[in-house]
């Protein structure tokens, strides 16, 4: 379905849509407050954008440097061309060791690659350990938000789910009780797990270390007990130096949730004694995107989710309406790069308000990239013949001032004569708002009359 169709269904539940909007606006407001505690915020954004632009311009070099240094620390680095190869690598690491039970902390990359269903098809039990991820996993649905996976659900709905899945009391919806139930359920999974899978927020070329940011400590728990840690990362996550982390860590949590730092910032430098660390570097379309100058800045994204929280369309349509692993403004740039035809409605799900661009901690010009996508889709004839012909016709008329005056005069008088509902339908405007009443005279006609009178 198109984004507009999904959004219409979301908006139809007015109470839920407003609740969703307010919940995310609250996060945006927390972000604003945290941002204001950093006087040099805008300078940090510029610095972050510059570091990312530099790293992306020499991506190959930094990845090779990272691999060499990570290997020295005792980690094993794997290279995956696409999602399939990534999934196969992870599965073979598990199979070679006879492992069947995996705990996983939040990783948008594994969502992108569809790792969970792949492993499950091959007989592996994967348990998501981030609370929000666990909730959507139990519901057998994808996360709706890259930072707040279950933000589309109300606590009562989670109560019903946990009653069915975890045996909490019927009608129980106290978040503290529900969280405790999830924690108890997960405790056993952590103890049984043979492998822990995590995402990666930053990989540091200079040291070969990786950094994972979480609020629940689940990445630490999931990698401290099992003997195997598999860290999966998109190749764009590499940054040159450890010192660069200082810039990104100050931006990431403030932009994401309004926290000064995430509760846990976990640094992994090689495996712990007696255990293994494998890092899977995944391309999956990133090199191709890096080669498109109009869209390559989107690779700077650090997945903070700020553009989702501030987007007036995301807040009122929900993450699932995008039908992508990463939703919102950034997802609407990344998804068409993979499959323009399938995701062609996403660059239209934007009023070009520009708020995403102003919150982005790495200064991705998100709304201008969405506008650029419209141009690409128009050239590929993916915006519909109706719109193309309307634009061509309008431009033809507007390039001829006398014709424009005659056509517009006719349209005004026709609109005045016809019932307004019909005019609304002809104009493609929905029936829940009214069109302007066309005046008898245009501005230029009024002015010509006035000035003629003035001279006479």
């Amino acid at each position: 379905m198109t984004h507009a169709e999904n959004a219409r269904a979301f908006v139809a539940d007015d109470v839920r849509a407003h609740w969703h909007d307010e919940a995310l606006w609250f996060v945006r407001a927390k972000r604003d407050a945290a941002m204001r505690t950093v006087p040099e915020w805008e300078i940090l954004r510029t610095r972050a954008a510059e570091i990312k632009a530099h790293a992306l311009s020499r991506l190959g070099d930094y990845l090779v440097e990272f691999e060499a240094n990570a290997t020295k620390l005792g980690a094993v680095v794997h290279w995956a061309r696409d999602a399939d190869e990534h999934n196969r690598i992870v599965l073979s690491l598990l199979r070679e060791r006879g492992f069947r039970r995996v705990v996983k902390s939040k990783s948008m990359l594994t969502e992108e690659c569809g790792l969970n269903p792949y492993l499950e098809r091959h007989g592996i039990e994967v348990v998501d350990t981030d609370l929000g991820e666990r909730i959507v996993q139990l519901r057998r649905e994808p996360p709706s938000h890259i930072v707040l996976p279950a933000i589309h659900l109300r606590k009562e709905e989670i109560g019903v789910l946990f009653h069915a899945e975890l045996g909490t009391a019927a009608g129980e919806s106290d978040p503290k009780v529900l969280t405790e139930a999830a924690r108890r359920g997960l405790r056993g999974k952590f103890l049984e797990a043979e492998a822990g899978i995590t995402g990666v927020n930053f990989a540091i070329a200079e040291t070969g270390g990786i950094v994972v940011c979480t609020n629940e400590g689940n990445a630490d728990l999931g990698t401290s007990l099992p003997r195997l840690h598999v860290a999966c990362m998109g190749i764009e996550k590499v940054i040159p130096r450890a010192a660069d982390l200082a810039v990104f860590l100050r931006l990431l949590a403030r932009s994401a949730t309004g926290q000064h730092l995430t509760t846990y910032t976990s640094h992994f430098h090689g495996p712990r004694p007696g255990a293994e660390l494998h890092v899977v570097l995944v391309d999956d379309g990133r090199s191709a995107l890096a080669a498109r100058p109009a869209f390559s800045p989107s690779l700077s994204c650090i997945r903070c989710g700020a553009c989702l929280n501030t987007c007036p369309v995301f807040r009122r349509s929900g993450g699932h309406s995008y039908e992508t692993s990463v939703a919102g403004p950034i997802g609407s740039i990344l998804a068409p790069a993979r499959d323009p035809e399938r995701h062609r409605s996403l660059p239209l799900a934007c009023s070009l308000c520009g708020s995403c661009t102003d919150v982005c901690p790495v200064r991705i010009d998100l709304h201008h990239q969405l506008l650029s996508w419209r141009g690409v889709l128009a050239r590929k004839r993916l915006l519909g013949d109706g719109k193309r012909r309307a634009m061509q016709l309008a431009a033809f008329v507007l390039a001829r001032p006398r014709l424009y005056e005659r056509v517009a005069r006719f349209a005004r008088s026709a609109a005045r004569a016809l019932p307004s509902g019909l005019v609304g339908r002809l104009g493609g405007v929905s029936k829940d708002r009214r069109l302007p009443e066309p005046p008898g005279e245009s501005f230029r006609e009024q002015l010509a009359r006035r000035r003629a009178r003035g001279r006479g």
Partner: protein
Amino acid sequence: MRVGLFVPCYVDQLFPHVGRATLDVLERHGLEVDFPRDQTCCGQPMYNAGFSDEARTLARRHVRIFREYEHVVCPSASCVATVRHGYASLVPKEPGFEDVRASTRELCEFLTDVLGVTSVPGRFPHRVGLHASCHGVRELRLAGASELGASAPGARPTLDRAHRLLASIDGIELVSPRRPDECCGFGGTFAVDEPAVAAMMGRDRIADHARAGAEIVTATDVSCLAHLDGLMRHDGSPLRVMHVAEILAAAGAEAGSTA
């Protein structure tokens, strides 16, 4: 000072009173205002929908028509944003493009930045909510955006030009909506492509201004106001819309009649 009046096509055809108010405000400042009648549309609708070839034809015409003026004034921030930012990719080599980009200003921007107006004479005894149009705030930087930090280059502390002019009018009470600069949901073809979300966004802005106590919602952009007005009239809202130029003209007329 000779000024070219740039009246967007939809204002010309559907909201002539806004063009008239803009003209009144400029003439009251003693300016010689010219309305070049060959002007039609700056190309924004095509540009924002992704149809660059169609937009380019109109952009080229627009530059040729307005390049002779020292100043070009327009009662629409989004049209000015198209000229100032969009034209750089559409018609960078058109002779006069640089001049038109530099000379074209939104009405309040022109009044404060070129004429140095700091206060407006006259009276307008109403409670008014100023809707900060996205293109005015985030493309033209005519006011500080709520997303940006204090160290933003040239963005904050930014004079909110429309706010400053309105606040100087005797009797006016400017109310403060909870969300200072959220989008109204119009967005050109967006309102056609995504009608459900567009309408919800508009209703949310109206409710925010109503809660803040506004009788009138004003803005530097007619398109935002037309979208809000369509929802207000459909829903029977007691609020109404007026373009900033209309308020400035109404206050000025009052001052003129009592002077």
